[in-house]
């Protein structure tokens, strides 16, 4: 059950192909290209002084959020981390609102209340992260608890990093989910470094091995293979909604940029970066699809145009309105629960998924 190597891609791939149509495989590439393109442009905007604060990206990790989020149904609920922009894209957040979010503009997802990837569109079933990283594991666990109490066939998914596994909320969430056998999927994004701290200073036992100690299964997946990520998440979701309890997915990947824009990553050996560069998740998916005759260049240029237009739209949007800065700490109307997000996977088209009984 518990694997420690990352050589499962071959198996994962063949499993994935049973569930992925060509349009899905293109969608996965599209989500990754959008994530990389948006973040690349945002980094430029940051250097131009258009993005206040700092800037965090997920360069090299695009497959983790794209693959996992793609397996989630509209009625599932997501707590997304800061290197997982593709999950927001898949749920339906538009690139213009993402740029506006980075720039603190009124049309951004948090209307300037929070920065960078600290957002979640509640109308799309997403809860934005806080900076105390494993906190959202408990929120996702609580969502799953409600689903189980109400007898609903849906699940919650949350992402967190290798550093998060050192904090108590990781333990509390894993334990609670195991005790109550909840429909929750934990995606551990092992990107080798927590800021500058490498894995060997973070834990003595790989966290995926700890899943068994909490009473459920853990799997290690090549986090740079978007189709393997999809398949692992799809299987975990199936397990969750059929009463099989939680799953810990360890997505092994590499943070190819610094912790944030200011970080030159001198503490990472160059050879390590070079080694991982050969395993770029986007190139990998492109070569698969190119072999099938997909027009990759056409896709890339369409996405570039979409990003150009989105960045222009965001730059033209007004900044957040300072006259509203002191408003909104409290909800003054009825409490609206999270809404449903988009779920482009073709597998949901044919499935009858009765959720709310």
């Amino acid at each position, binding site marked *: 059950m518990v694997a420690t190597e990352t050589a499962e891609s071959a198996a994962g791939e063949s499993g994935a192909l049973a569930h992925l149509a060509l349009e899905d495989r293109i969608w996965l590439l599209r989500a990754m290209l959008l994530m990389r393109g948006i973040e690349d442009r945002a980094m430029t905007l940051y250097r131009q002084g258009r993005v206040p604060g700092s800037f965090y990206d997920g360069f090299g990790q695009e497959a983790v959020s794209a693959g996992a989020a793609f397996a989630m149904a509209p009625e599932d609920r997501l707590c997304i981390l800061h290197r997982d922009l593709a999950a927001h894209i898949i749920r339906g957040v538009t690139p213009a609102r993402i740029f506006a979010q980075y720039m603190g503009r009124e049309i951004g997802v948090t209307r300037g209340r929070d920065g960078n990837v600290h957002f*979640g569109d*509640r109308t799309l079933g997403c809860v934005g992260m806080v900076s105390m990283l494993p906190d959202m594991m*408990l929120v*996702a666990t609580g969502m799953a608890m409600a689903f189980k109490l109400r007898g609903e066939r849906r699940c919650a998914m949350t992402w967190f990093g290798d550093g998060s596994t050192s904090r108590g909320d990781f333990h509390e969430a894993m334990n609670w989910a195991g005790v109550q056998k909840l429909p929750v999927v934990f995606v551990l994004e092992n990107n080798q470094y927590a800021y500058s701290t490498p894995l060997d200073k973070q834990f003595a036992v790989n966290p995926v091995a700890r899943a068994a100690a909490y009473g459920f299964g853990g799997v290690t997946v090549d986090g740079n293979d978007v189709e393997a990520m999809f398949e692992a998440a799809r299987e975990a979701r199936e397990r969750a909604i059929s009463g099989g309890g939680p799953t810990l997915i360890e997505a092994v990947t590499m943070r190819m940029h610094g912790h944030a824009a200011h970080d030159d990553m001198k503490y990472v050996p160059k050879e390590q970066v070079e080694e991982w560069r050969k395993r770029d998740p986007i190139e990998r998916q492109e070569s698969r699809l190119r072999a099938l005759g997909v027009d990759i260049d056409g896709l890339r240029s369409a996405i570039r145009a979409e990003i150009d237009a989105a960045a222009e739209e965001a730059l033209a949007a007004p900044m957040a309105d300072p006259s509203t800065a002191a408003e909104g700490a*409290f909800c003054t109307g*009825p409490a609206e629960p999270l809404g449903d997000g988009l779920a482009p996977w073709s597998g949901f088209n044919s499935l009858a998924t009765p959720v709310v009984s």
Partner: protein
Amino acid sequence: MAALTYLQAISAALRDELRSDERVLLMGEDIGVFGGAFKVTDGFIDEFGGDRVMDTPLAESAIIGTAIGAAVVGMRPVCEMQFADFISCGFDQLVNVAAKMHYRQGLAVPITVRLPSGGGFSGGPFHSQNPEAWFMHAPGIKVVAPSTAEDAKGLLHTAIHDPNPVCFMEHKHLYRRIKGEVPDGIFETPLTARVARPGSDLAVITYGAMVHVALEATDDLDGASVEVLDLRSLVPLDEAAILDSVARCSKVVIVDEANATCAAGAQVAALIAERGFEDLDGPVVRVATPNVPIPFSPPLEQAVLPNVERVREACRELLAY
């Protein structure tokens, strides 16, 4: 109407909510089979089952964090901290996740956190605290602190119906000591102050267990007419009622059972300094616990907690000013 203790009133509110709203769910340590450390939920598991009166793992961060998750998908969780002191272990989830959620994302977090608080019975440094000010300082959290059985029930209904996180400070020392007539059924007590006793010479402004200390201390104070204002809600703070009392009485004693620095009463004093100064005929006087942990041994504990004598003395001095 029924005569209920403060504790029975809290139990009744929870029972009424569980019966009337299937979204309501109680979560806490030892609240199910055992009925809670103070027996607030005694027998509940038989009527409502273990899913809705949930014995949780011993993990306060998880209790708050999972309640947040359940709330944003439509539940109305009511969390019990076994003692208010243990909220320190759930602090991060409450002040960073729950409190900031609506401001950041427009997402409401309708959770109630019951915090059995207060000292007076040798609970020691970890079972006696009054941590309400921690949460007053975290925008996005409401904080209520009833002093009577009727308000304990009504404010708990208000808290559970509120779309925001609410800290419900229930004073352990009042649980079985205070009894009063409580209306039947579900009713909401507004988040405003209550004049516990009207007066015109001096106002004692306080909340929670100290309301009873203030009433006793000023019941017969050399014929002086002493008002006692029971704040009931600390967030929102009923500023108009406070300033009304100041305008009527011109002399103010503020009593906190909590440690003095930055306590709820400090906020009241600041408000009066800013907006009630012209109405004052003397300095604002505060009676509060000094800035030490609450000690265990009875003579030590009695030496730090505000009591009838101390409040009476403070009022006498101010009346003579």
